[in-house]
Protein backbone atom coordinates (compact mmCIF):
# COMPACT_ATOMS: atom_id res chain seq x y z
CA UNK A 1 0.00 0.00 0.00
CA UNK A 2 2.71 2.45 0.96
CA UNK A 3 4.54 1.66 -2.24
CA UNK A 4 1.57 2.72 -4.34
CA UNK A 5 1.15 5.87 -2.34
CA UNK A 6 4.72 6.84 -2.85
CA UNK A 7 4.46 6.31 -6.54
CA UNK A 8 1.48 8.59 -6.72
CA UNK A 9 2.43 11.29 -4.28
CA UNK A 10 6.09 11.21 -3.36
CA UNK A 11 5.73 13.41 -0.31
CA UNK A 12 3.03 11.27 1.31
CA UNK A 13 5.44 9.25 3.37
CA UNK A 14 6.94 12.36 4.86
CA UNK A 15 3.71 14.05 5.76
CA UNK A 16 3.17 13.96 9.49
CA UNK A 17 6.68 12.70 9.76
CA UNK A 18 6.98 13.64 13.41
CA UNK A 19 3.74 11.91 14.23
CA UNK A 20 4.99 8.81 12.51
CA UNK A 21 8.28 8.91 14.34
CA UNK A 22 6.48 9.43 17.61
CA UNK A 23 4.27 6.45 16.85
CA UNK A 24 7.16 4.08 16.29
CA UNK A 25 6.88 2.49 19.75
CA UNK A 26 3.18 1.94 19.19
CA UNK A 27 3.69 0.54 15.73
CA UNK A 28 6.44 -1.74 16.94
CA UNK A 29 4.30 -2.97 19.82
CA UNK A 30 1.32 -3.55 17.59
CA UNK A 31 3.23 -5.23 14.80
CA UNK A 32 6.09 -7.04 16.50
CA UNK A 33 4.55 -8.01 19.81
CA UNK A 34 0.82 -8.28 19.33
CA UNK A 35 0.64 -9.22 15.68
CA UNK A 36 3.97 -11.01 15.53
CA UNK A 37 3.46 -12.79 18.82
CA UNK A 38 -0.01 -13.85 17.77
CA UNK A 39 1.13 -15.21 14.43
CA UNK A 40 3.99 -17.01 16.16
CA UNK A 41 1.50 -18.55 18.55
CA UNK A 42 -0.82 -19.60 15.76
CA UNK A 43 2.00 -21.17 13.78
CA UNK A 44 3.25 -23.16 16.74
CA UNK A 45 -0.27 -24.30 17.59
CA UNK A 46 0.00 -26.61 14.58
CA UNK A 47 3.13 -28.26 15.96
CA UNK A 48 3.71 -30.78 18.70
CA UNK A 49 6.06 -28.49 20.61
CA UNK A 50 6.51 -29.63 24.15
CA UNK A 51 8.76 -27.76 26.55
CA UNK A 52 10.46 -25.68 23.88
CA UNK A 53 8.94 -24.37 20.66
CA UNK A 54 9.80 -26.65 17.75
CA UNK A 55 8.59 -26.58 14.19
CA UNK A 56 7.38 -30.13 13.73
CA UNK A 57 3.92 -29.81 12.31
CA UNK A 58 1.10 -32.15 13.22
CA UNK A 59 -1.77 -30.47 11.44
CA UNK A 60 -4.93 -30.05 13.43
CA UNK A 61 -4.10 -32.67 16.08
CA UNK A 62 -3.84 -30.16 18.89
CA UNK A 63 -7.22 -28.70 18.02
CA UNK A 64 -8.92 -32.06 17.82
CA UNK A 65 -7.59 -32.93 21.22
CA UNK A 66 -8.54 -29.55 22.60
CA UNK A 67 -12.16 -29.88 21.62
CA UNK A 68 -12.31 -33.41 22.92
CA UNK A 69 -11.13 -32.36 26.37
CA UNK A 70 -13.81 -32.05 29.02
CA UNK A 71 -11.75 -29.50 30.84
CA UNK A 72 -11.71 -27.18 27.84
CA UNK A 73 -15.47 -27.40 27.42
CA UNK A 74 -15.94 -26.71 31.11
CA UNK A 75 -13.52 -23.79 30.82
CA UNK A 76 -15.30 -22.06 27.99
CA UNK A 77 -18.71 -22.65 29.53
CA UNK A 78 -17.44 -21.06 32.72
CA UNK A 79 -15.98 -18.14 30.83
CA UNK A 80 -19.25 -17.62 29.02
CA UNK A 81 -21.24 -17.61 32.27
CA UNK A 82 -18.70 -15.51 34.09
CA UNK A 83 -18.30 -13.13 31.17
CA UNK A 84 -21.97 -12.50 30.48
CA UNK A 85 -22.82 -12.06 34.14
CA UNK A 86 -19.81 -9.86 34.79
CA UNK A 87 -20.69 -7.65 31.87
CA UNK A 88 -24.32 -7.33 32.90
CA UNK A 89 -23.77 -6.93 36.61
CA UNK A 90 -20.82 -4.61 36.51
CA UNK A 91 -22.54 -2.35 33.98
CA UNK A 92 -25.86 -2.37 35.84
CA UNK A 93 -24.41 -2.06 39.34
CA UNK A 94 -21.79 0.40 38.19
CA UNK A 95 -24.34 2.55 36.48
CA UNK A 96 -26.87 2.39 39.33
CA UNK A 97 -24.27 3.31 41.91
CA UNK A 98 -23.04 6.11 39.71
CA UNK A 99 -26.57 7.41 39.22
CA UNK A 100 -27.11 7.36 42.97
CA UNK A 101 -23.78 9.05 43.55
CA UNK A 102 -24.78 11.70 41.06
CA UNK A 103 -27.76 12.80 43.15
CA UNK A 104 -25.68 15.48 44.80
CA UNK A 105 -25.33 13.32 47.86
CA UNK A 106 -23.29 13.94 50.92
CA UNK A 107 -20.14 11.93 51.57
CA UNK A 108 -19.59 11.37 47.89
CA UNK A 109 -15.85 11.14 48.42
CA UNK A 110 -16.23 8.52 51.10
CA UNK A 111 -18.60 6.37 49.11
CA UNK A 112 -16.46 6.64 46.02
CA UNK A 113 -13.37 5.64 47.92
CA UNK A 114 -15.20 2.69 49.46
CA UNK A 115 -16.43 1.48 46.09
CA UNK A 116 -13.13 2.00 44.36
CA UNK A 117 -10.55 0.74 46.83
CA UNK A 118 -10.87 -2.97 45.92
CA UNK A 119 -9.56 -2.11 42.48
CA UNK A 120 -6.26 -1.16 44.08
CA UNK A 121 -5.83 -4.72 45.31
CA UNK A 122 -4.50 -7.45 43.12
CA UNK A 123 -6.59 -10.43 42.07
CA UNK A 124 -4.41 -12.66 44.19
CA UNK A 125 -5.42 -10.68 47.25
CA UNK A 126 -9.05 -10.54 46.18
CA UNK A 127 -9.17 -14.27 45.63
CA UNK A 128 -7.58 -14.97 48.96
CA UNK A 129 -9.92 -12.80 50.97
CA UNK A 130 -13.05 -14.10 49.33
CA UNK A 131 -11.84 -17.65 49.56
CA UNK A 132 -11.81 -17.04 53.23
CA UNK A 133 -15.12 -15.29 53.58
CA UNK A 134 -16.79 -18.01 51.54
CA UNK A 135 -15.09 -20.85 53.39
CA UNK A 136 -17.88 -22.87 55.01
CA UNK A 137 -15.85 -23.67 58.10
CA UNK A 138 -15.21 -20.15 59.30
CA UNK A 139 -16.77 -17.78 56.81
CA UNK A 140 -20.31 -16.59 56.29
CA UNK A 141 -21.82 -20.08 56.62
CA UNK A 142 -20.34 -20.76 60.02
CA UNK A 143 -21.28 -17.32 61.29
CA UNK A 144 -24.90 -17.71 60.24
CA UNK A 145 -25.00 -21.20 61.71
CA UNK A 146 -23.54 -19.91 64.95
CA UNK A 147 -26.44 -17.49 65.09
CA UNK A 148 -28.82 -20.40 65.26
CA UNK A 149 -29.76 -21.19 61.67
CA UNK A 150 -27.98 -24.51 61.67
CA UNK A 151 -29.11 -25.77 58.31
CA UNK A 152 -27.89 -22.68 56.50
CA UNK A 153 -25.64 -23.65 53.63
CA UNK A 154 -23.52 -21.25 51.67
CA UNK A 155 -20.39 -22.85 50.33
CA UNK A 156 -20.10 -21.75 46.71
CA UNK A 157 -16.40 -22.54 46.50
CA UNK A 158 -16.94 -26.15 47.51
CA UNK A 159 -19.96 -26.83 45.37
CA UNK A 160 -19.12 -27.63 41.79
CA UNK A 161 -22.49 -26.43 40.53
CA UNK A 162 -22.22 -22.88 41.78
CA UNK A 163 -18.51 -22.31 42.21
CA UNK A 164 -18.32 -19.95 39.25
CA UNK A 165 -20.76 -17.65 41.02
CA UNK A 166 -18.48 -17.59 44.03
CA UNK A 167 -15.77 -16.32 41.74
CA UNK A 168 -18.18 -13.85 40.21
CA UNK A 169 -18.90 -12.35 43.64
CA UNK A 170 -15.21 -11.68 44.15
CA UNK A 171 -14.67 -10.44 40.61
CA UNK A 172 -17.52 -7.96 40.89
CA UNK A 173 -16.25 -6.78 44.23
CA UNK A 174 -12.92 -5.98 42.69
CA UNK A 175 -14.08 -4.44 39.44
CA UNK A 176 -17.42 -2.64 39.82
CA UNK A 177 -15.88 0.34 41.61
CA UNK A 178 -13.92 1.26 38.54
CA UNK A 179 -16.99 0.87 36.35
CA UNK A 180 -18.90 3.08 38.77
CA UNK A 181 -16.19 5.75 38.49
CA UNK A 182 -16.20 5.59 34.73
CA UNK A 183 -19.98 5.88 34.67
CA UNK A 184 -19.98 8.67 37.19
CA UNK A 185 -17.46 10.50 35.09
CA UNK A 186 -19.72 10.01 32.12
CA UNK A 187 -22.71 11.36 34.00
CA UNK A 188 -20.71 14.35 35.14
CA UNK A 189 -19.84 15.10 31.56
CA UNK A 190 -23.50 15.44 30.57
CA UNK A 191 -24.53 19.00 30.15
CA UNK A 192 -26.91 20.19 32.90
CA UNK A 193 -29.06 21.85 30.26
CA UNK A 194 -30.13 18.46 29.01
CA UNK A 195 -31.60 17.55 32.38
CA UNK A 196 -33.37 20.88 32.53
CA UNK A 197 -34.81 20.42 29.08
CA UNK A 198 -35.96 16.91 29.92
CA UNK A 199 -37.63 18.16 33.06
CA UNK A 200 -39.35 20.94 31.19
CA UNK A 201 -40.68 18.42 28.71
CA UNK A 202 -41.95 16.30 31.59
CA UNK A 203 -39.94 13.23 30.70
CA UNK A 204 -39.66 10.85 33.69
CA UNK A 205 -36.19 10.45 35.16
CA UNK A 206 -35.70 6.82 34.20
CA UNK A 207 -36.66 7.59 30.63
CA UNK A 208 -34.21 10.46 30.54
CA UNK A 209 -31.46 8.14 31.70
CA UNK A 210 -32.34 5.35 29.35
CA UNK A 211 -33.04 7.24 26.16
CA UNK A 212 -31.10 10.47 26.45
CA UNK A 213 -28.25 10.19 28.91
CA UNK A 214 -26.98 6.70 28.20
CA UNK A 215 -26.78 7.22 24.43
CA UNK A 216 -24.76 10.35 25.13
CA UNK A 217 -22.31 8.35 27.21
CA UNK A 218 -21.30 6.16 24.30
CA UNK A 219 -17.58 6.80 24.64
CA UNK A 220 -17.63 5.97 28.32
CA UNK A 221 -19.37 2.71 27.59
CA UNK A 222 -16.82 1.88 24.92
CA UNK A 223 -13.91 2.47 27.28
CA UNK A 224 -15.66 0.54 30.03
CA UNK A 225 -16.48 -2.35 27.74
CA UNK A 226 -12.90 -2.67 26.57
CA UNK A 227 -11.64 -2.64 30.14
CA UNK A 228 -14.21 -5.12 31.47
CA UNK A 229 -14.13 -7.44 28.51
CA UNK A 230 -10.35 -7.66 28.34
CA UNK A 231 -10.36 -8.44 32.04
CA UNK A 232 -12.91 -11.20 31.53
CA UNK A 233 -11.03 -12.92 28.74
CA UNK A 234 -7.82 -12.86 30.73
CA UNK A 235 -9.30 -13.95 34.05
CA UNK A 236 -6.72 -16.22 35.62
CA UNK A 237 -5.20 -15.01 38.89
CA UNK A 238 -8.55 -14.72 40.58
CA UNK A 239 -9.44 -18.32 39.89
CA UNK A 240 -6.02 -19.58 40.87
CA UNK A 241 -6.10 -17.69 44.15
CA UNK A 242 -9.67 -18.57 45.00
CA UNK A 243 -10.14 -22.16 43.91
CA UNK A 244 -7.22 -23.32 41.76
CA UNK A 245 -9.89 -24.34 39.31
CA UNK A 246 -11.64 -26.60 41.79
CA UNK A 247 -13.54 -28.33 43.14
CA UNK A 248 -12.21 -30.77 40.60
CA UNK A 249 -12.28 -28.87 37.34
CA UNK A 250 -15.52 -27.02 38.02
CA UNK A 251 -14.12 -23.49 37.98
CA UNK A 252 -11.50 -23.81 35.26
CA UNK A 253 -11.16 -20.96 32.77
CA UNK A 254 -9.51 -20.86 29.35
CA UNK A 255 -6.52 -18.71 30.33
CA UNK A 256 -5.71 -21.25 33.02
CA UNK A 257 -6.00 -24.09 30.56
CA UNK A 258 -3.51 -22.30 28.34
CA UNK A 259 -1.10 -21.70 31.17
CA UNK A 260 -1.36 -25.17 32.69
CA UNK A 261 -0.84 -26.94 29.41
CA UNK A 262 2.00 -24.70 28.36
CA UNK A 263 3.94 -24.99 31.56
CA UNK A 264 2.71 -27.80 33.76
CA UNK A 265 1.97 -30.29 31.05
CA UNK A 266 4.87 -28.97 28.99
CA UNK A 267 2.78 -29.17 25.88
CA UNK A 268 3.23 -25.78 24.26
CA UNK A 269 1.36 -26.87 21.15
CA UNK A 270 -1.77 -27.63 23.15
CA UNK A 271 -1.53 -24.38 25.09
CA UNK A 272 -1.04 -22.41 21.90
CA UNK A 273 -3.99 -24.14 20.27
CA UNK A 274 -6.16 -23.16 23.20
CA UNK A 275 -4.96 -19.57 23.12
CA UNK A 276 -5.48 -19.43 19.37
CA UNK A 277 -9.07 -20.48 19.90
CA UNK A 278 -9.44 -17.69 22.46
CA UNK A 279 -7.91 -15.17 20.10
CA UNK A 280 -10.03 -16.23 17.18
CA UNK A 281 -13.16 -15.81 19.27
CA UNK A 282 -12.04 -12.41 20.48
CA UNK A 283 -11.02 -11.33 17.02
CA UNK A 284 -14.35 -12.33 15.50
CA UNK A 285 -16.13 -10.13 18.01
CA UNK A 286 -13.66 -7.30 18.39
CA UNK A 287 -12.06 -6.60 15.05
CA UNK A 288 -15.14 -5.52 13.11
CA UNK A 289 -16.38 -3.53 16.06
CA UNK A 290 -13.03 -1.92 16.79
CA UNK A 291 -12.56 -1.00 13.20
CA UNK A 292 -15.97 0.62 13.00
CA UNK A 293 -15.44 2.30 16.33
CA UNK A 294 -11.95 3.60 15.87
CA UNK A 295 -11.24 3.36 12.20
CA UNK A 296 -14.14 4.62 10.20
CA UNK A 297 -14.89 7.87 11.92
CA UNK A 298 -13.38 11.24 11.36
CA UNK A 299 -12.03 13.26 14.22
CA UNK A 300 -14.41 14.84 16.70
Amino acid at each position, binding site marked *: *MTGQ*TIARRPNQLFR*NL*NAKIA*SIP*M*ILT*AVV*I*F*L*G*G*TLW*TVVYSFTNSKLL*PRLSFVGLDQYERLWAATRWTVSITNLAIYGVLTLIFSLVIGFLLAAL*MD*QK*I*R*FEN*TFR*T*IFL*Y*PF*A*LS*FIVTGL*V*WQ*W*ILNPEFGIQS*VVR*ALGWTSFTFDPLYNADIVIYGILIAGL*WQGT*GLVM*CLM*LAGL*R*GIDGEIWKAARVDGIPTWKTYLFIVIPM*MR*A*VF*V*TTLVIIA*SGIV*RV*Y*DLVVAQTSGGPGIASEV*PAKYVYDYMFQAQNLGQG*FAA*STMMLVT*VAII*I*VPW*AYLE*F*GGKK*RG
Partner: protein
Amino acid sequence: MANPGSLAVTVAGADAMSDSLAGPRGRRPQRSLSGRNIMIYGTLAIAALYYLLPLYVMVVTSLKGMPEIRLGNIFAPPVEITFEPWAKAWASACTGLNCDGLSRGFWNSVRITIPSTVISIAIASINGYALANWRFKGSEIFFTILIVGAFIPYQVMIYPIVIVLREMGIYGTLTGLIIVHTIFGMPILTLLFRNYFVSLPEELFKAARIDGAGFWTIYLKIMLPMSLPIFVVAMILQITGIWNDFLFGVVFTRPEYYPMTVQLNNIVNSVQGVKEYNVNMAATILTGSVPLFVYFVSGRLFVRGIAAGAVKG
Protein backbone atom coordinates in the same frame (compact mmCIF):
# COMPACT_ATOMS: atom_id res chain seq x y z
CA MET B 1 -36.43 17.02 57.67
CA ALA B 2 -33.89 14.87 59.41
CA ASN B 3 -30.37 14.97 58.19
CA PRO B 4 -30.18 12.12 55.73
CA GLY B 5 -26.46 11.90 56.20
CA SER B 6 -26.77 10.81 59.80
CA LEU B 7 -28.95 7.96 58.66
CA ALA B 8 -26.29 6.74 56.30
CA VAL B 9 -23.73 7.03 59.02
CA THR B 10 -25.62 4.78 61.35
CA VAL B 11 -26.24 2.25 58.67
CA ALA B 12 -22.81 2.05 57.13
CA GLY B 13 -20.70 2.05 60.22
CA ALA B 14 -19.35 5.15 61.73
CA ASP B 15 -15.62 4.87 61.43
CA ALA B 16 -15.46 4.83 57.67
CA MET B 17 -17.60 7.89 57.46
CA SER B 18 -16.21 10.09 60.12
CA ASP B 19 -13.46 11.63 58.05
CA SER B 20 -15.81 13.28 55.65
CA LEU B 21 -18.35 14.41 58.21
CA ALA B 22 -16.51 17.65 58.34
CA GLY B 23 -17.70 18.98 55.06
CA PRO B 24 -21.22 18.42 53.82
CA ARG B 25 -21.30 20.43 50.68
CA GLY B 26 -23.85 23.12 51.16
CA ARG B 27 -24.42 24.18 47.62
CA ARG B 28 -27.26 21.88 46.85
CA PRO B 29 -30.87 22.77 47.40
CA GLN B 30 -32.85 20.23 49.43
CA ARG B 31 -35.64 19.54 47.08
CA SER B 32 -36.08 15.84 47.48
CA LEU B 33 -38.36 13.93 49.80
CA SER B 34 -36.77 12.08 52.65
CA GLY B 35 -38.20 8.81 51.33
CA ARG B 36 -36.13 9.24 48.24
CA ASN B 37 -33.09 10.00 50.32
CA ILE B 38 -33.60 6.93 52.44
CA MET B 39 -33.66 4.90 49.27
CA ILE B 40 -30.51 6.52 47.96
CA TYR B 41 -28.48 6.39 51.12
CA GLY B 42 -29.85 3.00 52.07
CA THR B 43 -28.79 1.49 48.78
CA LEU B 44 -25.40 3.14 48.90
CA ALA B 45 -24.90 2.03 52.48
CA ILE B 46 -25.75 -1.59 51.71
CA ALA B 47 -23.42 -1.50 48.73
CA ALA B 48 -20.76 0.06 50.91
CA LEU B 49 -21.13 -2.83 53.35
CA TYR B 50 -20.44 -5.34 50.60
CA TYR B 51 -17.31 -3.44 49.60
CA LEU B 52 -16.07 -2.88 53.12
CA LEU B 53 -16.67 -6.35 54.49
CA PRO B 54 -13.50 -7.94 53.06
CA LEU B 55 -11.35 -5.04 54.19
CA TYR B 56 -12.83 -5.34 57.63
CA VAL B 57 -12.12 -9.06 57.70
CA MET B 58 -8.56 -8.47 56.51
CA VAL B 59 -7.81 -5.85 59.12
CA VAL B 60 -9.48 -7.66 61.99
CA THR B 61 -7.80 -10.94 61.16
CA SER B 62 -4.39 -9.36 60.82
CA LEU B 63 -4.68 -8.10 64.37
CA LYS B 64 -5.57 -11.45 65.92
CA GLY B 65 -3.28 -14.15 67.22
CA MET B 66 -3.49 -17.62 65.69
CA PRO B 67 -5.27 -19.23 68.68
CA GLU B 68 -8.02 -16.68 68.39
CA ILE B 69 -8.37 -17.25 64.66
CA ARG B 70 -8.71 -20.98 65.17
CA LEU B 71 -11.70 -20.34 67.42
CA GLY B 72 -13.71 -19.48 64.40
CA ASN B 73 -15.66 -16.32 63.83
CA ILE B 74 -13.81 -14.26 61.22
CA PHE B 75 -16.10 -11.29 61.74
CA ALA B 76 -15.54 -10.94 65.46
CA PRO B 77 -13.29 -8.07 66.48
CA PRO B 78 -9.99 -9.11 68.05
CA VAL B 79 -10.13 -9.74 71.78
CA GLU B 80 -6.48 -9.09 72.12
CA ILE B 81 -4.89 -6.83 69.55
CA THR B 82 -1.48 -7.91 68.38
CA PHE B 83 0.77 -6.32 65.81
CA GLU B 84 3.00 -9.32 65.60
CA PRO B 85 1.57 -10.58 62.31
CA TRP B 86 2.38 -7.21 60.76
CA ALA B 87 5.91 -7.27 62.04
CA LYS B 88 6.31 -10.82 60.86
CA ALA B 89 4.87 -10.15 57.41
CA TRP B 90 7.10 -7.16 56.93
CA ALA B 91 10.33 -8.35 58.40
CA SER B 92 10.56 -12.03 59.18
CA ALA B 93 8.20 -14.23 57.17
CA CYS B 94 10.15 -16.92 55.38
CA THR B 95 10.37 -17.92 51.76
CA GLY B 96 12.64 -20.88 51.55
CA LEU B 97 15.74 -19.70 53.33
CA ASN B 98 15.15 -15.98 53.17
CA CYS B 99 13.39 -14.84 56.27
CA ASP B 100 13.11 -11.13 55.80
CA GLY B 101 9.47 -10.85 54.84
CA LEU B 102 8.08 -8.30 52.44
CA SER B 103 10.70 -5.68 53.20
CA ARG B 104 12.97 -7.46 50.78
CA GLY B 105 10.88 -6.58 47.76
CA PHE B 106 9.49 -3.20 48.69
CA TRP B 107 12.22 -1.07 47.15
CA ASN B 108 12.37 -3.33 44.14
CA SER B 109 8.70 -2.69 43.58
CA VAL B 110 9.34 1.02 43.82
CA ARG B 111 12.26 0.74 41.43
CA ILE B 112 10.11 -1.13 38.95
CA THR B 113 6.90 0.85 39.33
CA ILE B 114 8.21 4.39 38.98
CA PRO B 115 10.12 4.13 35.70
CA SER B 116 7.57 1.74 34.21
CA THR B 117 4.72 4.08 35.05
CA VAL B 118 6.48 7.17 33.74
CA ILE B 119 7.69 5.60 30.51
CA SER B 120 4.49 3.76 29.68
CA ILE B 121 2.44 6.91 30.25
CA ALA B 122 4.79 9.08 28.24
CA ILE B 123 4.61 6.74 25.29
CA ALA B 124 0.89 6.12 25.52
CA SER B 125 0.10 9.83 25.77
CA ILE B 126 2.10 10.53 22.63
CA ASN B 127 0.33 7.66 20.90
CA GLY B 128 -3.04 9.01 21.92
CA TYR B 129 -2.09 12.47 20.79
CA ALA B 130 -0.87 11.26 17.42
CA LEU B 131 -4.01 9.17 16.96
CA ALA B 132 -6.30 12.03 17.90
CA ASN B 133 -4.66 14.91 16.09
CA TRP B 134 -2.18 13.59 13.57
CA ARG B 135 -3.77 10.64 11.92
CA PHE B 136 -1.74 9.08 9.21
CA LYS B 137 -2.43 6.27 6.83
CA GLY B 138 -2.62 3.07 8.82
CA SER B 139 -2.69 4.66 12.23
CA GLU B 140 -6.16 3.25 12.88
CA ILE B 141 -5.08 -0.20 11.85
CA PHE B 142 -2.28 -0.15 14.36
CA PHE B 143 -4.63 1.14 16.99
CA THR B 144 -7.13 -1.61 16.27
CA ILE B 145 -4.38 -4.21 16.61
CA LEU B 146 -3.48 -2.61 19.89
CA ILE B 147 -7.03 -2.83 21.20
CA VAL B 148 -7.29 -6.47 20.19
CA GLY B 149 -3.98 -6.93 21.96
CA ALA B 150 -5.68 -5.94 25.18
CA PHE B 151 -7.53 -9.24 25.01
CA ILE B 152 -4.55 -11.54 24.65
CA PRO B 153 -3.91 -13.53 27.82
CA TYR B 154 -0.54 -12.45 29.17
CA GLN B 155 0.66 -15.99 29.59
CA VAL B 156 0.59 -16.67 25.88
CA MET B 157 3.01 -13.85 25.19
CA ILE B 158 5.66 -15.04 27.62
CA TYR B 159 7.71 -17.08 25.17
CA PRO B 160 7.62 -14.66 22.25
CA ILE B 161 8.68 -11.88 24.57
CA VAL B 162 11.41 -13.95 26.15
CA ILE B 163 12.74 -14.48 22.63
CA VAL B 164 12.49 -10.79 21.69
CA LEU B 165 14.18 -9.67 24.89
CA ARG B 166 16.89 -12.28 24.51
CA GLU B 167 17.61 -11.12 20.98
CA MET B 168 17.80 -7.54 22.21
CA GLY B 169 20.15 -8.67 24.95
CA ILE B 170 18.10 -7.22 27.76
CA TYR B 171 16.48 -10.33 29.16
CA GLY B 172 16.67 -10.33 32.93
CA THR B 173 17.29 -6.61 33.23
CA LEU B 174 15.15 -3.88 34.67
CA THR B 175 15.01 -2.25 31.23
CA GLY B 176 13.44 -5.38 29.84
CA LEU B 177 10.79 -5.43 32.51
CA ILE B 178 9.99 -1.76 31.98
CA ILE B 179 9.53 -2.42 28.28
CA VAL B 180 7.20 -5.31 29.03
CA HIS B 181 5.07 -3.17 31.32
CA THR B 182 5.00 -0.43 28.70
CA ILE B 183 3.83 -2.88 26.08
CA PHE B 184 1.02 -4.35 28.13
CA GLY B 185 -0.15 -1.02 29.50
CA MET B 186 -0.26 0.47 26.05
CA PRO B 187 -3.68 -0.62 24.73
CA ILE B 188 -5.88 0.75 27.51
CA LEU B 189 -3.74 3.83 28.13
CA THR B 190 -3.61 4.75 24.47
CA LEU B 191 -7.37 4.40 24.31
CA LEU B 192 -7.79 6.71 27.29
CA PHE B 193 -5.40 9.33 25.98
CA ARG B 194 -6.83 9.20 22.50
CA ASN B 195 -10.34 9.75 23.83
CA TYR B 196 -9.12 12.56 25.98
CA PHE B 197 -7.29 14.42 23.27
CA VAL B 198 -10.20 13.97 20.89
CA SER B 199 -12.43 15.63 23.46
CA LEU B 200 -10.29 18.76 23.67
CA PRO B 201 -11.64 21.62 21.53
CA GLU B 202 -10.38 21.22 18.02
CA GLU B 203 -10.05 24.99 17.60
CA LEU B 204 -7.08 25.01 19.96
CA PHE B 205 -5.22 22.62 17.77
CA LYS B 206 -6.14 24.42 14.56
CA ALA B 207 -5.12 27.79 15.92
CA ALA B 208 -1.76 26.40 16.97
CA ARG B 209 -1.27 24.87 13.54
CA ILE B 210 -2.00 28.20 11.87
CA ASP B 211 0.60 29.78 14.14
CA GLY B 212 3.04 27.29 12.68
CA ALA B 213 3.46 25.08 15.71
CA GLY B 214 4.56 21.52 14.95
CA PHE B 215 3.90 18.10 16.43
CA TRP B 216 6.08 18.36 19.49
CA THR B 217 5.42 22.04 20.21
CA ILE B 218 1.68 21.51 20.32
CA TYR B 219 2.09 18.41 22.45
CA LEU B 220 4.35 20.06 24.99
CA LYS B 221 2.95 23.60 25.05
CA ILE B 222 -0.77 23.03 24.57
CA MET B 223 -1.79 19.44 25.15
CA LEU B 224 0.30 18.54 28.16
CA PRO B 225 -0.69 21.49 30.34
CA MET B 226 -4.35 20.68 29.71
CA SER B 227 -4.13 16.99 30.49
CA LEU B 228 -3.42 16.74 34.18
CA PRO B 229 -6.65 14.84 34.93
CA ILE B 230 -6.09 12.13 32.37
CA PHE B 231 -2.49 11.77 33.47
CA VAL B 232 -3.75 11.13 36.97
CA VAL B 233 -6.09 8.44 35.69
CA ALA B 234 -3.34 6.80 33.71
CA MET B 235 -1.01 7.02 36.66
CA ILE B 236 -3.48 5.35 38.97
CA LEU B 237 -4.18 2.55 36.52
CA GLN B 238 -0.51 1.91 35.89
CA ILE B 239 0.64 2.09 39.48
CA THR B 240 -2.05 -0.38 40.46
CA GLY B 241 -1.32 -2.71 37.60
CA ILE B 242 2.44 -2.66 37.86
CA TRP B 243 2.62 -2.75 41.63
CA ASN B 244 0.31 -5.75 41.72
CA ASP B 245 2.02 -7.61 38.91
CA PHE B 246 3.55 -10.93 39.80
CA LEU B 247 4.02 -12.82 36.57
CA PHE B 248 6.20 -10.37 34.64
CA GLY B 249 8.20 -9.39 37.66
CA VAL B 250 9.20 -12.94 38.21
CA VAL B 251 9.53 -14.21 34.65
CA PHE B 252 11.45 -11.32 33.12
CA THR B 253 13.85 -10.38 35.87
CA ARG B 254 16.26 -12.05 38.19
CA PRO B 255 15.92 -12.38 41.97
CA GLU B 256 17.66 -9.16 42.87
CA TYR B 257 14.81 -7.29 41.16
CA TYR B 258 11.93 -9.44 42.38
CA PRO B 259 9.01 -7.19 43.37
CA MET B 260 7.07 -7.36 46.59
CA THR B 261 4.33 -9.51 45.07
CA VAL B 262 6.81 -12.35 44.74
CA GLN B 263 7.29 -12.35 48.49
CA LEU B 264 3.56 -11.98 48.95
CA ASN B 265 3.00 -15.05 46.81
CA ASN B 266 5.66 -16.89 48.72
CA ILE B 267 4.23 -15.96 52.09
CA VAL B 268 0.69 -16.76 51.09
CA ASN B 269 1.47 -19.94 49.20
CA SER B 270 4.13 -21.49 51.34
CA VAL B 271 2.44 -23.12 54.19
CA GLN B 272 4.38 -23.84 57.29
CA GLY B 273 2.19 -26.49 58.84
CA VAL B 274 -0.86 -24.39 59.55
CA LYS B 275 -1.72 -21.45 57.35
CA GLU B 276 -0.96 -18.30 59.25
CA TYR B 277 -3.95 -16.34 58.15
CA ASN B 278 -3.11 -13.31 60.25
CA VAL B 279 0.30 -12.99 58.63
CA ASN B 280 -1.24 -13.56 55.20
CA MET B 281 -3.73 -10.78 55.77
CA ALA B 282 -1.14 -8.38 57.13
CA ALA B 283 1.09 -9.12 54.15
CA THR B 284 -1.87 -8.57 51.86
CA ILE B 285 -2.67 -5.18 53.33
CA LEU B 286 0.97 -4.14 53.38
CA THR B 287 1.38 -5.05 49.73
CA GLY B 288 -1.79 -3.26 48.79
CA SER B 289 -1.00 -0.18 50.82
CA VAL B 290 0.87 1.72 48.14
CA PRO B 291 -1.85 1.61 45.49
CA LEU B 292 -4.44 2.16 48.22
CA PHE B 293 -2.62 5.26 49.34
CA VAL B 294 -2.51 6.54 45.78
CA TYR B 295 -6.26 6.00 45.52
CA PHE B 296 -7.08 7.76 48.73
CA VAL B 297 -5.00 10.74 47.76
CA SER B 298 -6.03 11.10 44.16
CA GLY B 299 -9.46 9.47 44.01
CA ARG B 300 -11.20 12.74 43.34
CA LEU B 301 -8.95 13.55 40.40
CA PHE B 302 -9.60 10.08 39.07
CA VAL B 303 -13.26 10.70 38.38
CA ARG B 304 -12.57 14.18 37.12
CA GLY B 305 -9.92 12.84 34.79
CA ILE B 306 -12.16 10.28 33.23
CA ALA B 307 -15.03 12.75 33.14
CA ALA B 308 -12.84 15.10 31.17
CA GLY B 309 -11.62 12.47 28.80
CA ALA B 310 -13.91 9.63 28.21
CA VAL B 311 -17.18 11.33 27.46
CA LYS B 312 -16.92 12.36 23.91
CA GLY B 313 -15.42 9.77 21.65
